[in-house]
């Protein structure tokens, strides 16, 4: 090797206005977020859990779908960074008066927030806002598309427990068709070099999923065998009503994660679930509450990861404004 290599500058900020999807992020950016989240987690362990990083900035949590976990997590993250936050929920907004998403966003935009955290039932709603808003847009879940901060907190939790993501066998079970958590996780885990298996009933597997670099199977045994990580996805009751499977009981007996099935995974397997859980449908309580479960760690880490995203994007906002 005689080529003189320019030393590469380590990445210190996300040079982007928005976090719309994992698809947009490089592995380097993902690792920057995860590394930054480690420092943020330390803030959460102090007696006074507050730093002045986002003082004087306004963050609007614009939620068009019900959410407890994600909205609370973002709000705590924002407050720990000293941002001024407010929550706009669909029930109290002008949307009930027939206002369009674009008009709602432009009105909020006119009050000059730094960032808008958006959850919406339409895939691509965050892309639409990113085109019309100067404020940074953080995707808190758009339709069936992506839920990037969920995937980031999942990866953080895996790395915290396993020390790495690369080379691990991660098996994901459930509704592969409608899940935005699945899409973000597939993209993130494959970018970081994990071996990803996905498993669910054939009616809930979108065509072409196998072309995304993952193993697709309807066999729980094949998917769970020697897995380092088992990740469950929520099964929504309306999927049964939509005829995707015959009954919740049959779903549980065929695809539910039971202790017997977990025993085929690696002895140090971790069990994950993005919540909210349907006990006795996709996951048995003994597994959800058992020794391998890291489900509440995921929730705790969510705050740190969202602090990291807010902090790094705020640097991006500065970058844009001074450019």
């Amino acid at each position, binding site marked *: 090797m005689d080529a003189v290599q320019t030393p590469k500058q380590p990445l210190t900020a996300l040079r982007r206005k928005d976090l719309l999807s994992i698809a947009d992020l490089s592995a380097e950016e993902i690792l920057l977020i995860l590394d930054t989240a480690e420092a943020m987690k330390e803030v959460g362990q102090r007696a006074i859990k507050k730093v002045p990083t986002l003082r004087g900035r306004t963050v609007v949590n614009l939620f068009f779908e019900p959410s407890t976990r994600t909205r609370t997590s973002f709000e705590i993250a924002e407050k720990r960074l000293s941002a001024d936050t407010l929550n706009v929920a669909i029930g109290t907004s002008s949307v009930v008066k027939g206002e369009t998403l674009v008009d709602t966003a432009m009105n909020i935009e006119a009050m000059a927030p730094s960032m808008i955290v958006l959850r919406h039932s339409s895939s691509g709603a965050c892309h639409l806002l990113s085109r019309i808003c100067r404020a940074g847009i953080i995707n808190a879940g758009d339709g*069936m598309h992506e839920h990037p901060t969920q995937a980031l907190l999942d990866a953080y939790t895996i790395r915290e427990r396993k020390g790495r993501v690369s080379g691990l066998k991660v098996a994901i079970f459930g509704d592969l068709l409608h899940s935005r958590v699945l899409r973000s996780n597939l993209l993130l885990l494959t970018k970081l070099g994990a071996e990803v298996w996905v498993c669910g009933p054939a009616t809930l597997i979108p065509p*072409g999923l196998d072309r995304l670099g993952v193993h697709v199977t309807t066999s729980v045994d094949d998917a769970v065998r020697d897995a380092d990580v088992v990740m469950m996805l929520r099964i929504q009751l309306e999927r049964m009503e939509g005829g995707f499977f015959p009954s919740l009981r049959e779903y549980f007996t065929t695809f539910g994660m039971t202790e017997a099935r977990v025993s085929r995974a690696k002895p140090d397997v971790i069990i994950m679930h993005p919540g909210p859980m349907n006990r006795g449908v996709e996951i048995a309580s003994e597994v959800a509450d058992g020794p391998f479960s890291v489900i509440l760690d995921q929730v705790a880490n969510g705050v740190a990861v969202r602090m990291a995203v807010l902090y790094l994007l705020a640097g991006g906002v500065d970058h844009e404004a001074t450019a």
Partner: protein
Amino acid sequence: MKRLLKGGRLVDPAAGIDGDFDVLIDGDRIARVDRDLPATLADDGGVVSIPRGLVVCPGFIDMHVHLREPGQEHKETVATGTSAAVAGGFTAVACMPNTSPVNDNAGVTELILRKAAEAALARVYPIGAVSRGQQGEQLADIAELRAAGCVAVTDDGHPVATALLARRALEYTSMFDMPMIEHCEDLSLKGDGCAHEGPRAAELGLRGIPGTAESIMAARDILLAEMTGGRLHVAHMSAWTTLEAVRQGKQRGVKVTCEVAPHHFTLTDDWLASPVPYDTNTKMNPPLREARDRDAMLAGIADGSVDAIATDHAPHHYDEKHVEFDRAPFGIVGLETAIPLTLDRLVHSGLIRLPRLVELMSVNPARILHVPGGTLAAGAPADITILAPDLAVTIDRARFRSRSKNTPFHGWSLRGGVAATIVGGRVVFANREVPALALEEATSSSPARA
């Protein structure tokens, strides 16, 4: 008034002509077509010299257009739609019945025809509804619609829901030798889908509409056309499996024809992701499909399986499209982009030659709808499209004459455009960007065509 179009290449496949021929127009009819017709045949000042490189064709007919009037005049009117048509090189359009109220009775048909006569631009051929209110329950008064001027029936926008009603419609229309035009789509398979079901929709998290939703109904209707002897025309075909069903039907002698829209032979569902993710101007029904389907449409155009190119011109207001992808209405405008796209993507790419293009856009639509045109033989209406196949065109939606601007092709640079459009001997469009074109648009005070 006798005018002589001198010079230029004449492409009239129905008359077996492709070469340097002159065209003599007498009033609203073609009088003579021959090599080197003497200028003395024309009235004083009636000799129009066609610059070299331009191509004179029988008028193009777009057999699938939504003019939106009556009821949705904020999207388009008969006047703005026919203005867009002539600027796009079409001398005639057939308009779909999903207006408000639906064109399921002679009153609506007469209104559309009166508006078209007032506009005096492109000819307008209304298409009536198959069923009353397009509700899929009871046949519309099809004989009355035909007497009022409808040239076909369709429930476009909605498929004919039951096999029984489709059977009855095919039987009933066979009395008049009218085609039933089907928007093929099994609604149970479509569900609330908004994009082609495939890897791209999976990645973007959009609910899918499988190609099979289209082909399963096309196959049903082809079997019914075979059973009844009725004439079936498959609208805006998009899936390779539909093309296979049509090919098999044709081989068995079924009276089935089909059309493809320019966006379905140009774009794939990759355009949903980039350059503008979730661009609602890439949302149409049937949806942009994957490369295999797009390539099948191109193959069908080349091998003769596809009968017509039709735009499915579907104007929507900016406000309606400036929303979340899954909430936006389906459809794009097509009248003013069709000729640049077909010349660039089909002819200059080497896939087909000009005579085949004229078959697809003039000869066959006239034949399928049994309307005048499709040829410039003596006695035919003087409906003429003059192409400028080498004109450099940049699509600019701000210059569209259509009331709506919903196109994914804004900013595209294409080779090939329209030089002029003549309807009933009257120049209704002359493109000022074509050098040395000696045609002037007739003013509205010019004598109306017969």
